[in-house]
Every structure is written in structure tokens, then in C-alpha cells.
């Protein structure tokens, strides 16, 4: 993937998805330096210093909520609208909360595609031995009554207690100096409050692709801790255990982590369509209501490649996927329209009516797809002729399925479902130039539109790809193929009779 820089609406960005990395207690964004280098070709790796650590002052507040707010602001300022949250240890709790608030629309961010937890602290109270907590609390208290930082000996002990094997001298120096420059009050805040807070109900179940990595020789946040506390919140997570690794995974095992993240992206996150930064920014903006943003955020999430159909059997589902390809030819980055239709059928989503000649929706789908069980054997042209024959009521399905008339009626429903599912994805909305979801935020005085005429566009509106750009995969251009600039008025507009 190219990392070419270009500018859309004056905001710099590049084509790579972003990994926003949140470090562990006592560490800093520097712990991700190795990962950044290893992943540079594929990802924009952005470490964020949490308040009281690294270069970040504790002045913006060190509570969990203040850390979450700090991260949200950093992400918004960065501007990425296609990103993965990576949280190491303490940063894991923050990552889960940022993810939850992004999926419920309240953070004002858009573009979350996945979560990676590295020995992550869970949203629930962190499992921690009483002795360990007491020891670290005493270090923090000593720091507070001293120069505001931990003592060197305590910092040394902390690092030694947290690695599976000694770090390289360079990494060790870096880790030690990060502990020493961190604010003791941020430590205190974490042990006295942050790590104890139970935020599990607030986070809920996060239906986002997730990668959970545990160190095989880690303590309470090792494999068992991850299984018990983080895995249940991430039903779509894969759990990986790095044998022999301790708690400081990004420092101990950057190469293996880089590989895991690349595979995670390739296999579970990166395949579907996504919106351009300009479009994502509008979804994230105060012009879009939190409720609508949450809906779009959920729909933009990558599909589960291992989705197992709930209503259709495997053969019917395979046929539906083939039918979907012909009914909605999507372009270079397709998503699983058939899977989403099956899921909607399973939820019992009704459109309020059915033709009296048809059995109930689920049954009609099963029978209609059974009638097409030879679909895979047809080439594209034959598939299309078959579909047209169904539309024209010229196709006589085999006995035991549907009649020719029913087939036509069922396929009408089917194509409506497939098409609506396609159009409901934010990337399709961008493709066709629809920004009507951004017609008002969480206010009674909703913004609406002020420019309503042909070829008129408001300053906040995202640039839209012209029809010629859409199949090339380019997601943003400055002009449309009709030669109309963003704010231009054509001659036709001037002729308009008012």
C-alpha cells in the first residue's frame, strides 16, 4: 500500500490506516517506536502520550475519563478516519472506552475499524495482587511527597517485575527513563481509582474486530486474565499468546506483534470499503447527530469473514452471495451484503408487508435460493440471463421450491433488500454523493441545509468523487466529471427560474 501524501480539504493525510497506540502505566508513546518502524509501509503508527506520561503534562487530568478525553482530542486533531486503537496494559482500558464511545457516537470520532489489546487492562477492575498494588502505591506516594516522580530503585524494580526476559540495553534505558519522567500523581490516580473503576457495563459488548495479545509469562493480565476479563467484551476477538513474554509486549516482542497486526488487518479488518477523510470528518462532526453517527459507525465496521448464516443453510448462503454479486456489482472493495441480509432476516426485520402469494420472508428466501442451486455453475452472462428471466416471470423453478410467479415476487424483495443494504453503508453514501445524514446534530436548532439549488454546495460539505473516479477506487477528488468545482455555479444555475 502506498504511503503517498496528499491533501484533501487542506488536511494532510495519507492512505495508510492509522494505529493509535496507547501505552502502559509508566511508559510513553516511545514504547511503540519499534512497531512504528516495522509497520511503516502499511500503517501510520501514532503513539499518544497519556496525561502524566512521556511529554504529556498531568495538568489535563489523570482520571480514566480525562485520559479518554485526551485521546479523543488527539485522534480528532490527527484527522484519521480509518483507524485501529491499540492499547497496552493501562492503555487497554482507555482504548476500550474510546472504542465504546466511538461506536455509540458520543466521542465525535468516526472510522474505528478494530481494536488491539496488548496485555490490556480490562474495562472492569484490573486483576492485581494486593501486595503488588500496595507496593506500587507506596512508590507513587513516596514520589508525591518527594520530587513528584518515582525513585530510581523503585523504577528499576517495576521494570524487572514486568518483563519475561531482560530487555535490550537500549530498550531498558528507555523504559527506565520513561518511568522516571512520569508523574507520580498519575500513578496514584491509576492505582487509587482508574484501575479499580468498573466500566464494563458502560463499554458493553464491542462488536468490532479485535486482536487480544497476552504474554505467556505475564501475571494477572496474562492469558487467563485476558480470557476472563477482555475476551467476553469482544466477541469478534482472536486471542494470541506470546510464549515466554512478560507484560511489556511492545518492547519485548515488536517483531511478532507487527506480524500479528499485519495479519489481523489483512484477514479481519482491511477488506471492506471505507470513506475518505473528508467524508469521515463530516460524519464525526457536530452536523451529524450522535445517534446517526453510531448507526453509521456500526455499519462501517468490517464484516466478519467467518460469518456463518443464521437463517440460510450453507448452500443457500453461497447462492445468495453469488446472486448479490450480480444484483449489486460493488467495485473494488466489496462488503458482505449477503451476510448482512441473512443477519437482518435472523433478527426478524420486516419491511411491513409481503406479497400474499409468498410464504413468510425466511421461508421465501430459503425456497427461492433452493430454486437457484445451480447458480454457481453458470457463467456471469448466464447468471444475468437467469435473473432477468426471473424478473420477467419466464423462469420455471424446479418443483418443491417456488412457482414462477412466486420466484418473481421473491426476487423483487430480494433485490430490494440487497440494494438497500448496499446503500446503507457509509462508503456507498459517499460513492453516490449523499451527505443528507449530516443535516443536524444534537441540537433542536438543527443545521439543515442553506444551499439548496443545483450545483450549490456548502463549505462544510465533503468533496464528492465524480462518476469517473468511482471505479478506480479513488475516494476523493476536487471536482466532478461534469467539470463543476465545489462552489462553482454553472450556466444552468443562472438560467434557473426563481
Amino acid at each position, binding site marked *: 500500500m502506498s504511503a503517498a501524501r496528499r491533501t484533501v480539504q487542506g488536511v494532510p493525510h495519507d492512505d495508510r490506516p492509522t494505529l493509535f497506540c496507547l501505552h502502559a502505566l509508566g511508559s510513553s508513546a516511545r514504547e511503540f517506536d519499534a512497531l512504528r518502524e516495522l509497520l511503516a509501509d502499511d500503517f501510520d503508527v501514532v503513539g499518544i502520550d497519556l496525561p502524566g506520561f512521556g511529554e504529556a503534562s498531568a495538568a489535563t487530568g489523570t482520571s480514566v475519563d480525562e485520559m479518554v478525553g485526551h485521546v479523543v482530542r488527539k485522534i480528532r486533531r490527527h484527522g484519521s478516519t480509518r483507524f485501529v486503537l491499540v492499547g497496552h496494559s493501562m492503555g487497554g482500558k482507555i482504548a476500550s472506552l474510546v472504542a465504546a464511545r466511538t461506536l455509540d457516537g458520543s466521542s465525535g470520532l468516526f472510522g474505528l475499524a478494530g481494536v488491539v489489546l496488548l496485555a490490556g487492562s480490562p474495562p472492569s477492575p484490573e486483576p492485581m495482587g494486593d501486595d503488588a498494588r500496595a507496593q506500587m502505591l507506596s512508590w507513587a506516594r513516596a514520589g508525591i511527597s518527594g520530587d513528584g516522580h518515582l525513585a530510581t530503585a523503585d523504577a528499576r524494580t517495576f521494570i524487572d517485575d514486568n518483563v519475561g526476559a531482560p530487555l535490550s540495553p537500549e530498550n531498558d534505558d528507555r523504559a527506565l527513563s520513561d518511568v522516571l519522567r512520569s508523574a507520580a500523581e498519575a500513578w496514584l490516580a491509576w492505582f487509587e481509582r482508574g484501575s479499580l473503576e468498573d466500566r464494563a457495563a458502560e463499554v458493553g459488548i464491542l462488536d468490532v474486530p479485535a486482536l487480544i495479545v497476552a504474554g505467556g509469562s505475564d501475571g494477572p493480565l496474562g492469558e487467563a486474565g485476558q480470557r476472563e476479563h477482555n475476551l467476553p467484551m469482544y466477541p469478534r476477538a482472536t486471542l494470541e499468546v506470546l510464549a515466554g513474554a512478560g507484560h511489556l509486549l511492545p518492547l519485548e516482542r515488536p517483531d511478532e506483534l507487527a506480524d500479528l497486526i499485519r495479519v489481523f488487518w489483512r484477514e479481519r479488518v482491511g477488506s471492506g470499503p471505507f470513506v475518505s477523510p473528508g467524508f469521515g470528518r463530516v460524519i464525526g462532526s457536530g452536523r451529524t447527530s450522535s445517534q446517526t453517527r453510531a448507526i453509521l459507525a456500526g455499519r462501517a465496521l468490517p464484516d466478519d469473514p467467518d460469518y456463518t448464516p443464521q437463517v440460510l443453510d450453507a448452500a443457500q448462503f453461497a447462492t445468495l452471495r453469488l446472486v448479490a454479486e450480480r444484483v449489486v456489482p460493488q467495485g473494488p472493495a466489496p462488503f458482505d451484503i449477503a451476510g448482512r441480509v441473512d443477519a437482518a432476516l435472523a433478527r426478524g426485520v420486516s419491511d*411491513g408487508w409481503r406479497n400474499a402469494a409468498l410464504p413468510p420472508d425466511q421461508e421465501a428466501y430459503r425456497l427461492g435460493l433452493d430454486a437457484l442451486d445451480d447458480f454457481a455453475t453458470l457463467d456471469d452472462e448466464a447468471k444475468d440471463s437467469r435473473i432477468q428471466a426471473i424478473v420477467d416471470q419466464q423462469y420455471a423453478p424446479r418443483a418443491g421450491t417456488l412457482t414462477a410467479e412466486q420466484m418473481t415476487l421473491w426476487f423483487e424483495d430480494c433485490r430490494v433488500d440487497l440494494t438497500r443494504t448496499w446503500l446503507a453503508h457509509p462508503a456507498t453514501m459517499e460513492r453516490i454523493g449523499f451527505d443528507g445524514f449530516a443535516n443536524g446534530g444534537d441540537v433542536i436548532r438543527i443545521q439543515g441545509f442553506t444551499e439548496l439549488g443545483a450545483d450549490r454546495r456548502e463549505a462544510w460539505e465533503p468533496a464528492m468523487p465524480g462518476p469517473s473516479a468511482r471505479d478506480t477506487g479513488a475516494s476523493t477528488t476536487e471536482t466532478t466529471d461534469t467539470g463543476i468545482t465545489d462552489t462553482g455555479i454553472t450556466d444552468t444555475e443562472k438560467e434557473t427560474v426563481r
Partner: protein
Amino acid sequence: MRLDGMRTYDDSEVVDAVVIGTGAGGAPILASLASRGLRVVALEAGANFDASKYTSDETEAVAINWMEERLSDGENPTAFGQNNSGKGVGGSTLHWGAFTPRPDARDLKLKTDSGLGEDWPIDPDELTGYIEKVEKFVGVAGPAHYPWDPTRRYDLPPVARNASSDMMIRGCEAVGITATDGPAALVTRDWHQPEHGVRPACANCGSCHQGCRSGAKVSMDTTYLPLAVAKGAEIRADSMVHGIELDASGRVSAVVYTRNGIEHRQRTKALFLCAGGVETPRLLLHTGLANSSDQVGRNYMAHGATQVWGKFPTEMRSHRGYPSSIITEDTVRPADADFAGGYLIQSLGVVPLTLSTTLARGGGLWGRDMVDMMDSYRYMAGVGINAECLPHEDNRLTLTDELDDFGIPKARISFTAHDNEDAIEKHAIRTMTSIVEAAGATSTTVLARTAHTIGTARMGTSADSAVVDADGRSFDIPNLWIADNSVFPSAVIANPALAIMALALRTADRFVAAGA
């Protein structure tokens, strides 16, 4: 809407009236009766929404629609659901388009004039009086000068025109049709709504069909229902009525409903059935009441609502702004008509999923054609009609043997357009295509559809041929009244809600006058 602090009544208390449904029919009645000091309870199957929580997202906006399954039959099966009816405190006015032409006096005398259809047993001037009352109370925007009715006045200036509006004006001018800003039930400047508060001026957000988040659009929960509650009415949301009990003398004595899984029985002196053109006849057929005429469910009518869309060289992006701001009434009685009645034309903006559904169903599109069409979404603008539909006995709602969650049989609605509907449609397609082409469209697409659910418990002068009398009172059960889209004897080409509200106020007056 705010329901905390409202007066409440006990199930066992014999209230003066129960109103089933809080839409265009039920809400004005509730307000009117409560204002006279009557003890009234509304039972509404849908939820009580916080309007600020509506979403413009089309898929999720169905929260305010009646999505329980109905079965459609006939040559032109009706698409229900999102296209058709609402559910919630406010009924279908939560998601209606708020396009409010007034019924034309000629439409109320269709049979006298043409020999076809039915006359309304109501004096057009009397209806107009009630319509003016509604318009005054809820706030309707319209042009300063209404070309087809010079004496008419609207209290609010017209809603902003969008690219579709400009297109229709341009096209009509080119082909010699008079068109102007249409009447829209929304406020174009801040408006103080009694017992509700300020309704901010329309923001041209374009999401009327997904629910108006600001309250600019007229809906019952921002107009008649707050008045009703202030005057002592109770609104019980999430209360699905499935039974009606009669006393020994054959009068309604109680209504049976389920709320949060628990069955209740509200005692009452009178019942107003305002559940809409599908649910009203379904409930009557289910309970077997008020049907000595065998007219319940018959004469189901759906307005012809065919659309013609054009592709333009300019970006129209017709999701912006109020969707249907331009009207022509030149086609109410076209000079060259080979049919009875006529139609109205309005400009059309549309949101993508709705358009694609009509393209798939009404236009037969799929595959590359569909994708290409949607790829040119933002270059599209259209016009559409609301056309006369004659009543036919065999266009009919009946019950199936499939039961819903409440044990009520699902409805089957059979609808077939007859010659008159077909003739109107042909004429309208010609007219609309000429407008859209004259406006500069490079290609056009015709999409067939119908709208509204009308006439299944018709009003009339004889107990043999109608379900209710001219006052809206059942011929069979003296304390049962119906006021919603189902009482229309003929479809009338004006979109229905304004007339439903007006009729509702009239029915309330008649009820009180009858001392019932």
C-alpha cells in the same frame, strides 16, 4: 413528547371517551374533547418518542413506522411499511410529508359530476371551515397568492425551494402549466405552539419522512396532543387494542388492550376508532363489530403516486430541503381527460434507499442498471402525482389465518387499479415527462407506486352501503365513532391528512352536539 405530569385515569373508571390511535384522526379529537372538559384516554399501539432522538438514517428511521407484517394482493399489491403508515404517539404524522393541498370541492361531488366514484355526504364549505381551523392552529406555509383559489391565505411564507423545485417551476413554465410553492404543514419562522412551546423555523434538513427533529413540521405530538394533555387527556403509549366489549344494549362498554405484556380493560362511555385505513377495519373485522353493511374492509383506495425522475447535467442533490415544495393544480380536471377526476403534481426530493426501493419495485431495476442509476443519484430530480382512485368493492381488506403477536389475524389487502386509474396514470406520465424534459433532463425514468390507505370504513348516508354516517358515527353501534382515513367515501386527490384532521374536529363537534 412530554407526558410526565399528565392526568391519568384508572382502567376501572368509566371515562367519557376512549380514542384508539393518536394520528391525524385521533389527536384532534382528543384535544377537542379534552378542551371541553371531557375525561378522555387515548390508547396508542406505538411508543412515545423523543423527537430529538429520531435519526435521518433511513434503515433505522423505521422505528416510527408500522412495520408489523401485512399481506398484499391483487394486480397492484400495496407496499406497506415505510411507504405507508406510522406507529407511535402522533401516528403517521411523525413521518408524513406534510404536503397539505386542500380537498377540491369538485372531488367531493365526483359522482354527481361524472357518474363515477362517490360523493361525500358533507358540504364542501363546511369542510373548508374546519380545514381553516386546522391550518390556523398547526401552522401551514404557502404562497401569498394561490393561483387556483385566489381567496386563500396562508399564515406562513412558503418553504425554501430546492433544486427539484426550481426544476419543476422551470419545466412547468416551459410547457405552459401554472406551478407555485405548495402548501406545507410546517413553520417557516419560529412559531409559538400553544401548550407545546416554540417550534423552530424549518431548517431545510430534508428528513421529514424520517421524523422532524426540530418540531418545525406539523405532527400531532407537537400540536394537538400537547393541547389535549394540557386539557386533561391521558395518552397511553405502547397500548395495543385488540378487543372491544359491548354491554347488553349493544353499546361499547370497554376496550381491551395489552400494555407491556399485560392485558387491561378500560371502561368507557364512548369509543373513537382512529387506527388508520388498515388497522381500523382490521380491528372491526377481528371483533366482528359495526359491519351489518358488509362494507368494512371494502373500497380500499390508494392514491396513484407515480413519479417521473429526470437525470440532469447539474448536481440536484435533492435530499436537501423540504422534499415537495412545488405544486400544480392545473391537472385537477385536465381539459383532455378521458377519465373521472384528476391529479395533483408536486416536485420531489428523495433519499437514496427510498429511491432505490422504488427503482427496484416500480422500475424493475437490478444489477449494473441499478448501480449506475444510484451512481447518478445526485443528478436526479423528479415530480410525482397524487391521483384520484375510485372505490371498488373488490379492492378489499380481509383477515388471514396468520396471527400477529396479539392474536389478531394479519390483514390481507387486495388492490387492483382499474381503467380510470390506468387512464389517469397514462395522462399523468405524459404531463410529468413533458415537464421534466422541458426542465432539461437528459433522460427520464417512470416509477409506478401508490400512496395512502383510504376508505375501508366508509362514510355515507345509508346503513346499507356505509359503515358510518356523515357525522362519523357507526350505523350499528351508537357510541362508536370512526375518524381517520378509513371513513373517506372517495379518495379525493388532495393528500389526505389535512382533511382527516378537519373531519376529526367535525366528528368531535357532532359527538358533543349529539350529547352522546
